[in-house]
């Protein structure tokens, strides 16, 4: 039980460090740690498939993409001009208001039952694969089209375009 609270504390701590780090590269590294704690949460919930996918896709692929773009644009220095203090203050107040509304509605909901794993095989690949390829077959195929179009779109966007006068912009 206490391991959940420890990991939850780490998640919140690293998430705070992500948005407060001055250097974008430090932000990416803290984000990797946050995703790692979320992976541990998945393991605690016995969602083994999601834990592995989160580990490979988020911590592997997406974070490498972020680091790659940061290095490509040579942004690994803290050159970001800070927003004015009043805007920062207003942003923090706005976020805290959102949190207060969510927590207040949670309080109104009352005490909840504990999360009990009724079916131990719920998050395993076997069970999820059965659901994915029967009930959710159409969304699964559509998501493959989405990934293909995203790939084509990314290449088209990032490609240097040749101007009519022969120069690249």
């Amino acid at each position, binding site marked *: *039980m206490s391991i*959940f*609270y420890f990991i939850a504390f780490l*998640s*919140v701590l690293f*998430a*705070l460090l*992500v948005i407060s780090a001055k250097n*974008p590269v430090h*932000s990416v590294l803290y984000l990797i740690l946050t995703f790692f704690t979320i992976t541990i*949460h*998945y393991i*605690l*919930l*016995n*969602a083994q*498939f*999601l834990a592995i*996918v989160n580990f490979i*896709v*988020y911590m592997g692929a*997406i974070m490498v*993409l*972020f680091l790659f*773009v940061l290095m*490509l*644009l040579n942004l690994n220095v803290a050159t*970001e*001009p800070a*927003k004015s203090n009043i805007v920062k203050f207003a*942003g*923090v107040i*706005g*976020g*805290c208001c*959102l*949190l207060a509304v*969510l*927590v207040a509605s*949670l309080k109104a*909901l009352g005490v*909840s*039952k*504990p*999360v*009990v*794993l009724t*079916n131990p095989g*719920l998050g395993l690949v076997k069970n*999820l694969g059965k659901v994915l390829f029967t009930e*959710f077959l159409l*969304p699964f195929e559509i998501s493959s089209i*989405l*990934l293909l*179009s*995203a790939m084509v*779109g*990314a290449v088209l966007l*990032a490609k240097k375009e040749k101007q009519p006068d022969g120069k690249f*912009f």
Partner: protein
Amino acid sequence: MESFFNTVKAVPLNHYILLCSILFSIGVIGVLIRRNAIVIFMSVELMLNAVNLLLTAFSVYRGDASGQVFVFFIMALAAAEVAVGLAIIVMIYRNTSSIDINVLNKLKW
């Protein structure tokens, strides 16, 4: 192994909702207070992950596998979103040689 998973049994569902609300709010604050487009993008990823974790917790609570399948789809969507978004950021950097979002105010008024 079984006793390891029994450790979560004592955690109420409310605490999962509270944790995910806090993570989501941190993501919102990050979007509001930063000017670096890539850090804003990472805050959006943080919000997506908070929702993913909550969907998984609900899925385990109800004993329904649909929630975990939704999380799988959200991850596929996030991968597509990151690829297109980072391509847009690279293009913005090429045109303005900066990824400060305050430069991009042509459509503001």
